[in-house]
């Protein structure tokens, strides 16, 4: 679409642009994304501000965004993108920032639980090829140390046949593990 030539400088801004294909200068800061964001009340830095910080590249801007809670609250519901007058695919930027904040381990302390859940989730897949909800719950609890949360649900979920004690598995779980391995070896290029 756009033929704007991009200097591939070694800055967070240019990495975001290369990785996501989003051209940050397209955002003219109308704020429509923030106005419609279901999480806007919870966020520490508003979606449009995340873009603004990246646009402006003021000293130390990398930490501001990478250690923000907002990037972890974003649910990628794409309400912003579906209404953005400039068609900026914000959820992709958020995805990239999350991955980058892990890589540079700048994850906001308040986001640790969210991260542990995602990790637990993926490990469950790594292990079984499918999600095993009991396993996930236990694993998550160990990571997050929220021992008591949701325990009251477990028995009822089982009685309702909503939780299987034994995981469903893909026939050859090694395959899945391999996929994880191949990708982690190739961490160099994320996208």
């Amino acid at each position, binding site marked *: 679409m756009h033929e704007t030539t991009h200097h591939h400088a070694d800055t967070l801004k240019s990495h975001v642009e290369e990785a996501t294909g989003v051209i940050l200068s397209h955002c003219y800061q109308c704020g429509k994304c923030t106005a419609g964001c279901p999480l806007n009340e919870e966020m520490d830095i508003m979606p449009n501000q995340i873009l603004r910080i990246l646009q402006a590249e003021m000293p130390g801007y990398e930490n501001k965004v990478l250690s923000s809670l907002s990037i972890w609250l974003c649910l990628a519901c794409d309400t912003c993108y579906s209404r953005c007058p400039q068609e900026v695919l914000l959820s992709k930027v958020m995805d990239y920032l999350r991955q980058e904040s892990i890589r540079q381990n700048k994850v906001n302390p308040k986001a640790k639980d969210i991260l542990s859940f*995602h990790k637990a989730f993926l490990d469950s897949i790594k292990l079984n090829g499918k*999600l095993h909800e009991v396993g996930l719950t236990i694993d998550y609890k160990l990571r997050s140390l929220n021992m008591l949360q949701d325990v009251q649900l477990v028995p009822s979920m089982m009685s309702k046949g909503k939780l299987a004690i034994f995981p469903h598995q893909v026939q050859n779980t090694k395959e899945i593990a391999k996929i994880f391995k191949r990708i982690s070896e190739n961490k160099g290029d994320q996208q």
Partner: protein
Amino acid sequence: MKIGYYPGCSLEGSSKEYNDSLFAVAEKCGVTLEEIKDWSCCGASAAHNLNHDLSLALPARTLALAGSQGFAEIVVPCAACYSRLASTNHEISENVTVKTKIEGYIDLKLTADVKILTVFEFLQKYIFPTVDKHIVNKLNQKAACYYGCLYTRPKETAAVDQIENPMEMDEVMVKAGATPIDWAFKTECCGAGLSVSRTDIVAKLSGKILEAAADRGAESIVVACPMCHMNLDMRRPEIKKQLKKDINIPVLFITQALGLSMGIPADKLGLNKHYVSTNKVVNCIVKMEA
């Protein structure tokens, strides 16, 4: 022609009733679904947060399997799975280098292009042609069809015509003899992936949705997404705390609602698996005079 089926993890676990009711409806109309052999998880709400490649590789594996098993179409009833599979399909068809890279990761070829059907596309295409003669009940109630994010956004992979006011499920509910209400929260987000890690937020978002439905006098809420269902049904205690009031509108899967109108027994549709009692729904039902 055989129709492929990708249940996804939730339909084997927390949303078994969605799976059961879908099959019950299909069976009644003589439509058979064939599960993709050795399918694996799509990565759902987690993968894309941590690793973009992974978020493509996991769905890609299933797509590759479906292709190699000769499925031209696969039904994906879970909204999250649909969204992941659809966007993966979109990205690999847009970008060849990504495609080859992913093929490398999964060590499978992404040759055939497999059409991904949402549950309402499936109903439209395979159930509607014959459903009328099976419908024996009018649900006879005000139903709030709730679509959430994953079917309606982003526009590239949206499974609905009007992303701000989708009507696909409403049409199904009309068939089932219910009255879909016009309400403002059809496509708001329920909190989805934060269900476990930030239940407080989910209670808040899902609370708003319940409230909006209640304001418009909805007697049932109809969904086509396990995560939406979990958040709106199972999280009711937290929501109650949040709203400081008790809203007990039951939450049905679209296939359960349609099943009821086809006279399929409640337990076969897994209505007993819900947290919020579905009796109100059942009580509204009236037999259609032949």
